[in-house]
């Protein structure tokens, strides 16, 4: 395989059979369309290329910025494509809730704008919401932007009508599957694939999946939001069903841990939604059927999403010298001294506040080790010798008392905490200096 550029690696993804021992369906062969293997990481590579390609000649000539409303995958793909042509890319969003995706986009050189929240003192007559205003700004001639407009752009559908869909048919030896299950974001992939499959067999059953209203599954819409999508046509789907965050994560774990497929949440949701829908039919079937679902993207961008929702997946063993293991009595008995005594402290003074605060004001002669780092140091053992006298200082004397108690427990004989912290020091009129 020899290519001239990475865009040639987009598409032609494998269709992989899911082991029946995993999904438990007896009469249905379940296949996953592995869109996560696209070069920029998701099925949106196809749409991004199809939407941007016709705009490129004009954009490169004028040096326009490519702009899109995207919460992640489309933005990633467009940023890479724009970069290949020396064009800047800007993502405007109010939906980007996954921090890794933000950092990734910044790494790709994208500019990100977050739209403002709703007004607290609402003015319902204000029809000029930020999104509408942005659309007007982009539509103006000579705005310096090209807008790929993924929620309304027919090329988003076309990419899958001529790519993803026919590939599935080819890999099933020229036949369309009986069931096709896909998550709906812009509706581009599900609509395009459904059309292609129905050209082969009008009886293909298409199941669209959206998130439950109160759930957030990055990349797809909720049951309400889907109506805001220009490409969304309810007629495409035989049914639209909802999935929850928990189901998406369960499915994701099955794909990751049992199927060698490092899928993201919507891949997991599609798997889980597919099995849930098909299980009922399976019992009553008398002949073999096939079903296909899409694995849209990869797991790596969703670590914080998972950490928030399934902290137990990341359970780490308890660490040594953890201040959380101290008893209340130990903390209460922590060795402290008051401001008067502290003024004549002969030893080292360690200020546990943020460097930012330390720069502005601190006790002359003190050194700064911010609590997070101090905490980390203590896991490894005593960070100063037992003969070194140490006075710990924090804002109000609580954290410093905990660490003094911990150091005491670790065998340090002469550590103290400043009672009342640096605020008591300031309030007593004792001197503070700038760095």
């Amino acid at each position, binding site marked *: 395989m020899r290519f001239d550029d990475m865009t040639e690696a987009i598409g032609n993804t494998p269709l992989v059979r899911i082991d029946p021992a995993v999904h438990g369906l007896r009469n249905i062969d379940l296949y996953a369309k592995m869109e996560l293997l696209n070069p920029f990481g998701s099925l949106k590579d196809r749409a991004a290329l199809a939407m941007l390609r016709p705009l490129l000649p004009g954009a490169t000539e004028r040096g326009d910025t490519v702009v899109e409303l995207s919460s992640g995958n489309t933005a990633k793909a467009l940023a890479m494509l724009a970069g290949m042509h020396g064009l800047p890319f800007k993502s405007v969003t109010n939906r980007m809730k996954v921090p890794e995706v933000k950092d990734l986009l910044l790494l790709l050189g994208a500019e990100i704008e977050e739209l403002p929240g709703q007004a607290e003192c609402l003015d319902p007559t204000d029809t000029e919401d930020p999104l509408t205003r942005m659309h007007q700004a982009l539509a103006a001639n000579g705005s310096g932007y090209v807008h790929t407009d993924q929620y309304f752009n027919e090329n988003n559908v076309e990419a899958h009508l001529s790519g993803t869909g026919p590939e599935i048919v080819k890999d099933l030896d020229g036949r369309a599957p009986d069931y096709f299950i896909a998550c709906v974001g812009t509706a581009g992939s599900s609509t395009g694939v459904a059309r292609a499959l129905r050209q082969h067999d009008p009886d293909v059953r298409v199941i669209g999946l959206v998130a439950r209203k109160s759930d957030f599954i990055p990349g797809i819409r909720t049951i309400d939001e889907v109506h*805001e999508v220009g490409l969304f046509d309810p007629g495409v789907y035989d049914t639209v069903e909802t999935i929850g965050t928990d189901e998406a994560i369960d499915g994701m774990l099955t794909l990751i841990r049992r199927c060698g497929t490092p899928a993201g949440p919507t891949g997991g949701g599609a798997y889980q939604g597919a099995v849930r829908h098909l299980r009922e039919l399976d019992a009553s079937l008398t002949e073999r059927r096939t079903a296909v679902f899409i694995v849209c993207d990869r797991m790596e961008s969703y670590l914080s999403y998972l950490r928030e929702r399934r902290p137990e997946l990341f359970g780490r063993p308890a660490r040594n010298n953890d201040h959380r293991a101290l008893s209340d009595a130990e903390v209460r008995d922590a060795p402290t001294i008051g401001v008067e005594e502290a003024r004549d402290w002969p030893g080292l003074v360690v200020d546990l506040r943020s460097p930012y605060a330390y720069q502005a004001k601190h006790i002359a002669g003190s050194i700064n080790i911010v609590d997070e780092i101090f905490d980390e140091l203590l896991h490894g053992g005593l960070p100063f010798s037992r003969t070194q006298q140490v006075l710990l200082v924090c804002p109000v004397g609580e954290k410093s008392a905990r660490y003094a108690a911990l150091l005491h427990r670790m065998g340090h004989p002469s550590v103290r905490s400043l009672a009342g912290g640096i605020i008591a020091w300031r309030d007593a009129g004792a001197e503070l200096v700038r760095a």
Partner: protein
Amino acid sequence: MPDLKPLHLTPRTAPALRSVLDDPALLTQLINGLGSPLNIVLPDLLEANVEAFRESYRRHRLRGRIYFAHKANRSAALLRRLAATEAGADVASLAELQHALGAGFTPDRIMATGPKNREFLWLAARTGVIVNADSPGELTDLADLVAAHGLPRVRVMVRLSGFASQGVQVISRRSRFGVPSRALAEVLDLLEKHREELELVGVAYHLDTIGWPEKAVALEGCLAALEECQARGLPVRSVDIGGGFGVNYLADGAEWERYTSELAQAVLGKREPMTWNGHGYGLRNDAGTLRGVLGLYPAHRPVSGAGYLDQLLGADAPGLRRPLGSLLLDTMYDLDIEPGRALLDQCGLVLTRVLEVRGELVRLDCNARDVSLEEHGVLMDPVLISRESRSDDPAGVYLLGNLCLEADLITRRKVFLPRRPEPGDLLAFVNTAGYFMDFSATQALLQPIGRKVAVYRDGGVWRWCLDEQYWPVHPRAEES
């Protein structure tokens, strides 16, 4: 699949507010004596609301003052009751300042905010309240007044706006108020020039937004501004983060979700209309696609009030990547806040009388400016209070006002009541003390503005007095 069950939006009501509603004899007597609409405030609920914010301060080990944003309600009773707590008052006009001084707030507990005229500045300077300046011009005016009248040095804060973010650009709506944060240096020059007249004590922001990420950018921007002040030898000590902590109006999140889902379906024409003339609350049907933005306050807000403050203080500063609460504590600044709506949570209701019932049209003896829920985009059902208990089926009705104006709709949506109301029944719009009670009330058509009464618990029963008669020393039970 159209959902034809009645769409309720049940208000969240605290036990004390409930117990007022459970006293129809009192309510009937009040409205018969004082007319419809009648504004009822419950001053004794304020204490717990102040305490909820203070508890959040304690959790974050922070100090600073909780200033009540007076603009949210004109009531004397509420203000006087707050004067009996530890709270301060945020006043935004000359009359509000006079009102706060008269209610018992000493000047050290008052902050003057918003754009100000010379009279307002003079009284603020004369009495020695903190002046939260909206512009450099205001600071110059103030300094001139102080010099010309030989007044003592005035404590000032500077309200900033237009904070810049790094990395991800967090956009905020353009604001009419405050000094652009990039112009801070010029303001500090001005303050140094007027050292004799003005003492800078801190910086401030107030953003009219629900989104906390914008506020995180603003708060971090204020910390940077304070650092710049310190570096120039100006001994600042506090940051004022304004108001906007929000209220949770609805008892049940599922009702809100269902309501908004059905509204979208109605706008798309997939179910019978739920609103007067198919009003879409900002949504519209564009060839089968839903366009526009839902222009409604998120009436179900599990994280609001003190919880919202907690969330903000627990959020990482976008640049320094340490929780904002820890940074405030580390830098030893006081945190001042100006909640209006959130402090008035559960503290009042508007009571009205049903005048006429014609099919699904119910006319009330008040107008849309007296209960400005619609104007503020807050959807919440009123509570029906009948003289005798009738059992009947739920009825969907539109509530109309008493002005001869097509637009005078108290609800633009069909409201589902437990039964069809009858003339003479009462409707109570609960939890309306913050902005929906007297903020917009007018005397158009010479219709009266609702009277206001304070109710309070005494000797196991509810007692009442006219709002202006209320002082936080209740008349004893034996006197009545």
